[in-house]
């Protein structure tokens, strides 16, 4: 191979590279889209979990929303108040105020109180167990305890307690709703932390039938309806239902006479005291 051939090929390749490089440079100039540099700046301050709890598709979309004034920094439920303040400072806006919401489990039927009628040996996921006689649990509305919600939670905000019930850690929960979607029996709801009156039961059975399957079931006795301010609690299909539009009227008195402890006054995390203890203290 002669020296000339080497030179020629180098020149040809170099020429092609130069031509296309110029084209790309021109295209970059011509097709340039201006983007607010603050979007990148805000994105860096955001947590980057992409949980979607703010209602946007991810952290970047939330940043765009912030810049476009369609959202307020406090709507990000993952950040602590310091981080929210940082973002607000960076953007020179108000942080805004949002009531914190967390996921709440509407079942307190752990393996200590709920009747297990049969052993379930199939695929060990809640979705599978719920489809086969509720994983053998007597109450078919209750938690199957196989931790689909814990597995789906990206923020490690759920742990399984000794009675196979998922406990949500309020400080970590961002109310992203992943557990709501994962639960095959729809036991999770997203609720503001100031909704403290909770009915931790979804069993539609009434009276002894309900209690026979789970000692902390709502047996539809209606005592809470009478004890609460008028209209706060209503009986619907054998289940006490709290009307949260009247949450200001809710008070701990409503749970005092509950014979099973199905209705609780919950500050912070759920299942921190056993419902049975509540009852013995009252009686």
């Amino acid at each position, binding site marked *: 191979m002669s020296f000339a051939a080497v030179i020629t090929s180098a020149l040809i390749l170099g020429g092609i590279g130069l031509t296309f490089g110029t084209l790309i440079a021109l295209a970059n100039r011509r097709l340039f889209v201006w983007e607010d540099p603050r979007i990148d700046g805000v994105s860096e301050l955001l947590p980057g979990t992409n949980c979607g709890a703010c209602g946007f598709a991810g952290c970047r979309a939330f940043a765009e929303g912030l810049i476009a004034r369609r959202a307020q920094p406090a709507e990000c439920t993952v950040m602590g108040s310091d981080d929210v303040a940082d973002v607000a400072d960076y953007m020179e806006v108000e942080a805004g105020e949002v009531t914190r919401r967390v996921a709440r489990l509407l079942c307190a039927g752990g393996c200590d109180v709920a009747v297990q*009628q*049969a052993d*379930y*040996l*199939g*695929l060990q996921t809640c*979705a*599978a167990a719920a*489809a*086969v*006689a*509720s994983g*053998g*649990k*007597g109450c*078919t509305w209750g938690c199957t305890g196989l931790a689909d919600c814990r597995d789906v939670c990206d923020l490690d905000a759920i742990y399984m307690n000794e009675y196979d019930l998922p406990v949500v850690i309020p400080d970590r929960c961002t109310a992203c709703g992943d557990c709501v979607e994962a639960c095959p029996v729809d036991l999770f709801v997203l609720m503001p932390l100031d909704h403290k009156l909770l009915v931790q039961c979804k069993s*539609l*059975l009434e009276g002894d039938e309900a209690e026979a399957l789970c000692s902390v079931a709502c047996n539809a006795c209606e005592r809470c309806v009478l004890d609460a301010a008028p209209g706060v609690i209503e009986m619907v299909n054998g289940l006490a239902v709290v009307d949260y539009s009247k949450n200001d009227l809710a008070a701990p008195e409503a749970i005092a006479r509950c014979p099973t402890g199905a209705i609780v006054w919950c500050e912070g995390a759920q299942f921190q005291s056993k419902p049975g203890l509540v009852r013995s203290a009252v009686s």
Partner: protein
Amino acid sequence: MARASGAVQLAGGVHPPELKALTEAVQIRRMPFPDEIVLPLRQHAGKPAMVIVRKGNRVERGDKIAEADGFVSSPIHASASGTITDISLWPHPDGSYAEAVRIAVEPFSAQAARPRLVPDWRGLSPEQIIQAIQDAGVVGLGGAAFPTHVKLSPPKEKPIDTIVLNGCECEPYLTTDHRTMVEYPERVHLGLRIMMRCIGVTRAIVGIERNKPDAIAAITATVPGDLDVTVQPVTVKYPQGAEKMLIDTLLGRRVPSGKLPMDVGVIVQNVASVATIAEVFESGLPLIERIVTVTGRGVKNPANLIVPVGTKLRDLLNACGGVTEDAYEIVFGGPMMGTAQANLDVPLLKGTTGVVVLTEADCKSKDTHPCIRCGHCLDACPVFLNPQLLGRLAMVARYEEMEANHLMDCMLCGCCSFACPSNIPLSQLFALAKNALRTRQAA
């Protein structure tokens, strides 16, 4: 045209142990009335029935207690005389709680003959017969409980030329259809005659697996001279009794993906359902009892019983001497496609073909192992899917990709799970995926 006898067998499929010896020679007998009957309003495909009785009412055996809600629905009748004690939620064999009517059965009362509730079919036009069948609450007894009157009213633009009677009973253990064919072959033929008259079809083929020679002989011997009925023995293989498989084997017609047998001019009906049509018109009583196989090594006296619909599982097992010490799992339907039961209070429905009580030794180990790519599931799948690939997609919930790989053609026959040496619960995964896809599409 029917292919040469036995030359064709279905592709795929498996050979599970038949285990029918426990009950295949046991004569059908009548079970005594239980003390309580529970009749769920949802026991057929389609909309649940609407209750028309109240708590405290007294009902006679055969009285209608719930009305069909729409065309694809079926009425429900009291299967014993007694008083309605409650209409409330009750455990349902599908694992949930469902609205049910509870009847306290009158002891020693005349659960006896009544004036005919169903008219004689001979004087009726096809439309009137179909109406009478709907009023009698007749549904398919093969498991899915699809209302029979809907099956008998195919749309005009889909002409039917052949009725296929399904006497395969390819599920292990079950002998309901087998005993029906052996003991009541005339009923099968009478029911078939009524069906042929309703649809206006002149040709019928009865497909029976070769492991039931006495049934083949009984049905062949009683074929009426004036009907064009062929009895066709077919290879013993699971799932030969799946309707699409059977049509392919008997007629060489492939039912396209997502279509129904009526799209290729065929109606498939299970022999027990056909016998029920005849029985309803013969006895004049609506569908209030059915034949159930109670079997498995976990039950003391396996039997084929005539059982009032709504009998609780507990009473049924007691009628068979109870369960043995080592009883481990109770399944409604056959072991391949049946549903495990967690509650002895669940009632038997119109579509319950059998109750199988398994011992621990009968059950597959619950330990699963990683897939070793052996391909047994591909050989076993009768609809040519790739269960190995679908299984991997299901584990990571990639349901849309599963749909693109024809998940919806899966009929959950369980062959792949049966064949898998690693015990991967493939068909359970597919059932979940199909459910998830259906809910997503509905939303």
